[in-house]
């Protein structure tokens, strides 16, 4: 689980942040303070799908599952 978190954080910090001088942590709210813009959110969804090896149904693409790196790994990886 911690490997997955690190990998996801690495992707977010390396590829997705609107402001590259910031660093997201596992509990950073990814959408609430403009950390990631809309186009990059679609990239994040695609990356998580690649990571877990399945398409994510639309009803799971909701804020409570994607709010932070911790909630993403909790919902999609620990299942």
């Amino acid at each position, binding site marked *: 689980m911690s490997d997955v978190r690190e990998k996801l954080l690495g992707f977010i910090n390396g590829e997705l942040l609107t402001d590259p001088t910031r660093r997201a942590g596992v509990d950073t709210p990814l*959408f609430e*303070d*403009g950390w990631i813009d*809309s186009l990059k*959110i*679609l990239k994040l*969804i695609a990356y998580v799908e690649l990571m877990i090896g399945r398409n994510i149904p*639309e009803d799971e*693409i909701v*804020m409570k599952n994607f709010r932070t790196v911790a909630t993403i790994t909790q919902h999609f990886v620990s299942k």
Partner: protein
Amino acid sequence: MTRAGEMNVADPMMHNPTMDNPMARLSSLGEWVADGSEVVLGPGMSALVNWIDAKFVGFALKAGARELPVSPLIERSVLERAGYFESFPAGVVEESDGGCMTPATCYHCYAKLAGSLLPEPGVWTCIAHCRRNERTAEPGRLRTFTMREIVLVGPAAWVRERKQQWMDRILAFAKSVQLIVELEPATDPFFDRGEARGRKLLQQIKELKHELRAQVDAKGTQLAVSSFNLHEAFFSRRFGFGLADGRDADSGCVAFGLERWALALALTLGPDGAFRLVEQEHG
């Protein structure tokens, strides 16, 4: 214990004899005369619409809103600039002179802000008779309806915070008039198709839209009465307005479908119970 004829405040649905067929009762009273998705209101429902609207105007003015008079007609170019045809191409009712019936009230506000730089965040409120090509006969989904809106323009965090405050305020108001309501994240149904699907997913994942839905019968049928929307910088970029300090202006709006609010009240409290709200205030 509830006495016969007395409303049970905790659960009005359980003690409301008009719930058996309240739509038929409203119709027989001449208060909700529907022809497909067009409706004519009787004097009681009209007074109820005005009463509800006065509540929302009161909330808006208390929150520092400025009233903005708007027309039920809107230039086609404004809707094009707002991207309305990209999302909902069949929804607009066009007039023979090339203008359109406004499908939502808040577009007028963005058009008026075009080209301006706001020295501070702003709140506006406006009301308009709107018209859309609705194709369903679901009660409450009308082709012509009255929409009160509160428009919020400012920095992103300010708009998001105000949206939350409005959700709290209107949820409390709905409960105070005994509506049985839920406030849930929502998406616009016209984002279901094609390229718009990406917008729907973003709306969903970022919780840009919430809907307040009222339960209007004992089976649990819901009627969306208000929506709370964040547009991020979409409209400020489309219409070219911003903040004087150089930052992007985000916008948001709170929309009230006034006939829907009146219908939800009449179906929940019964027509007499709903009309009594108006009488009590004026009596």
